[in-house]
């Protein structure tokens, strides 16, 4: 979700991001087509404020630790319409990506500071401090840690007064499909919290669609 521009900053580019044929998901609740809704707290010292947010998973390529989708911010004060951005995610699978970001102006200290905000991270902390989590096997861990980086605005121009320079530290719960995240951008208010829940879209249960690339 975009945040207000505090200082002028160009969106950073992710390099070597991968996609490919859709592979089976680790968790069905995080598979393509799944939708989530909730809020992002954008409060600052002057004002308490939260924007409503919808997220939809559009692509998943576990082999490359890749996930992508859109994020829609609904009640953005300076925008006439909901603002939709496209994001790409790095899944911390300890093969493709570790807990250390190594880019986007995030130091290991920033990383640890954000990851430790998730209670489910605490059992991993000691090992992560040693090697970024490289030696951890997270394949059976009921939480999936990710970084989501917005790449472009889908429905508004870059001159909309919003920035997508930062990225999110994300923790997904495989049990109930809830998502917690913290936005990190050295130029924005710290620890803006993203809280999303899996949406059933008026259904009595969970519905799943799928596509497969050739």
């Amino acid at each position, binding site marked *: 979700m975009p945040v207000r521009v505090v200082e002028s900053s160009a969106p950073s580019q992710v*390099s*070597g*991001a*991968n*996609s*490919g*044929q859709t592979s*089976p*998901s*680790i*968790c*069905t609740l995080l598979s*393509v*087509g799944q939708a989530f809704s909730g809020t992002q707290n954008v409060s600052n010292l002057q004002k308490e404020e939260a924007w409503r947010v919808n997220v*939809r998973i*559009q*692509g998943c*390529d576990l082999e490359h630790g890749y996930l*992508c989708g*859109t994020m829609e911010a609904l009640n953005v004060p300076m925008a006439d319409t909901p603002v939709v951005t*496209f994001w*790409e995610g790095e899944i911390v699978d300890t093969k493709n990506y570790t807990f250390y970001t190594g880019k986007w102006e995030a130091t290991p200290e920033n990383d640890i500071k954000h990851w430790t905000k998730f209670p489910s991270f605490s059992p991993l902390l000691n090992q992560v401090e040693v090697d970024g989590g490289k030696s951890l096997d997270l*394949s*059976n861990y*009921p939480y999936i840690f990710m970084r989501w980086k917005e*790449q*472009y605005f*889908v429905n508004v121009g870059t001159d909309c007064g919003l920035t997508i320079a930062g990225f999110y530290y994300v923790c997904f719960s*495989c*049990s109930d499909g809830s998502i917690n995240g913290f936005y990190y951008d050295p130029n924005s208010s710290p620890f803006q919290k993203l809280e999303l829940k899996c949406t*059933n*879209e*008026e*259904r*009595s*249960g*969970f*519905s*799943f*669609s*799928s*596509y*497969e*690339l*050739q």
Partner: protein
Amino acid sequence: MPTTTTTAATTGSNILHRLTSADRDVKLKALRELKNQIIGNRTKKLSFLKLGAVPTVASILSDAVSTDAVVDNNNDNINKNIIVQSAAVLGSFACGFEAGVKAVLDAGAFPKLSRLLSYHDEKVVDAGARSLKMIYQSKLAPKYDFLLEKNMEFLLSLLNNENENVSGLGASIISHSCKTSVEQKLLSDAGVLRKLTSLLGGSLSQRDASLESLATIFKSNPEVVVKFVGNESERALSCIIDLVKDRFARTRLLASLCLIIVRNTSPCYLQDLAIKTKLINTLLELLGDPGQVGDEASFAFSSLIAQKEDMQKLAFEVNAIDKLYNHLKGGSLHPLRFEGILLALADMCSKLECCRSRFLSLQVLNLVIDALAHDSSDVRIAACICLRSVSRSIKNLSAGSFMNETVVIPLVRLLDDSSTSVQVSALGAISNIVVDFTTRRSLFIRCGGVKQLVQLSKSMDSTIRSNALWALRNLMFLAENKCKEGIFLELTASLLASLICDPEPIVQEQALALVRNLVDGCISSVEYMFAEDGIIFDAVGRQLRSASKAEIGIQGMYVLSNVATGKESHKEAVMNQLLPTENRTQPYLINFLQSNDSRLRTATVWAVVNLTCSSSPGASVRVVKLRDAGIVSQIKNMVNDPCLDVKLRVRTALGQLMTFEDSST
């Protein structure tokens, strides 16, 4: 007035006439003249072929060989010359000209040419070997049986011969006839590898022939490769590596191909970064060769990088996309070269997003789109494959980069192509492009895409049916209601039901996946299942009862699971489908829950979760039915399922089931 042709024909007839002369000098002169006329001249070869020159020359050879055998006259130079010249003429007809090879073989000249190899006269042997080598370049040449002991001995004698055409013939025989792993092993055990290795140090033609034969013997046979590389021939491998830097382009290509085969057969070898980079650079540079080598270089490049992400990355780093594009934008390429470059680009973009980004930023897409309308079907296929690769970029699909008229219109047009292979490859690209997140599906529908896809889903060819359904399934993914309605009206419930019950499992799977997407999204979509007296719903049930593979069960269970998120009546319909009252046999639900495929177990538990949502009024009755059918106890057994997803879904299901169990006790 066709004066020249008449003159040519007259000259041709004249030569043919002189070939039948009783005067041997005249005959010999005519043979020489004929040879000179047809060498490297395809048109002349064809015109003499039509005049019946090949059987005439074959018979001259046959007579001369017989004369030589009967008259023990080693000094009959004219007869020897006739043999040499007639063999040379036959070889010329066979050189790079399939119709010529066929005519030579039909005229029965092959055994006569083979006989020349046992002559004492060097020139005769050389002429026979040259001609046979030409014949062995063709697929039409008879297969050489390596399993016969005497044949293997003869082959070794050819390879050991000092005459480069004779040893070259031995190598050509191997390249042509060695097909099976048994033959590869036999040749390797007979010491052929060692012999071929020694030929690598010989003349240009020996080197090239040897490289080709080595590649043939290595192909897909790790045992032989290990024997060659592992034990005795480390030096030989480095010799081949050196030949990648040879000054002759063909040798560089053949050496590269040989190493690619070693790598592809036994991936543990040739992992050195320098060699990998050298191979990539050599092949990219050979693309610039104006002849056959340039045509073949792109195919060799593809075999080097196909399915290998590390190689694609390396090639990307040396600007392979740019280099391939530069050859492409030169325009007016020979179809084979055009096809090869498009396929190389397709392989480059098959896995890595950085390659796709580069491809799109260079505007290669426009050239590929033009190629969709090329006269050659192979080029059209290659263009589709290229589009399919580049459209694997979810980032660009999300940005709607491909869903525009420039791409869609020519692709949809190809669905009408007279070639089935073109149709299948166009369907491959369309399947990706219709994964749309920008609500531009209507464009595809407006271009007549859905009508065409529905037509193709009725094809007699199951590959076309399954691919057409694949595209429709992807088009249906997260489609808005109006779009779904349009597709459904075109497809009809009865066609969908019959496709679900198609004889081919791959078609069934895609049809079920399509229905799964149809009933997802807006809750009213569930009603599609019950159109025309529920024929789709019944077809899904029938297919699940007889599911021949896990994928069908998975898609079918997600259909039912999605329907079970609807109203009470929908949930009840699913219950009746899963546990029909009249059927007392073990429900397939139990088999699915016990499946070895965790994806099928997951899909099945989701259906149970949706049927037992505590908020729905009929849930308690359904829980009782599920318990009576043994489903609840089966689910209880799964609390420690090895698959995390299944385990967590089982917990959700049990949480819901327990609510009712508690209230019923």
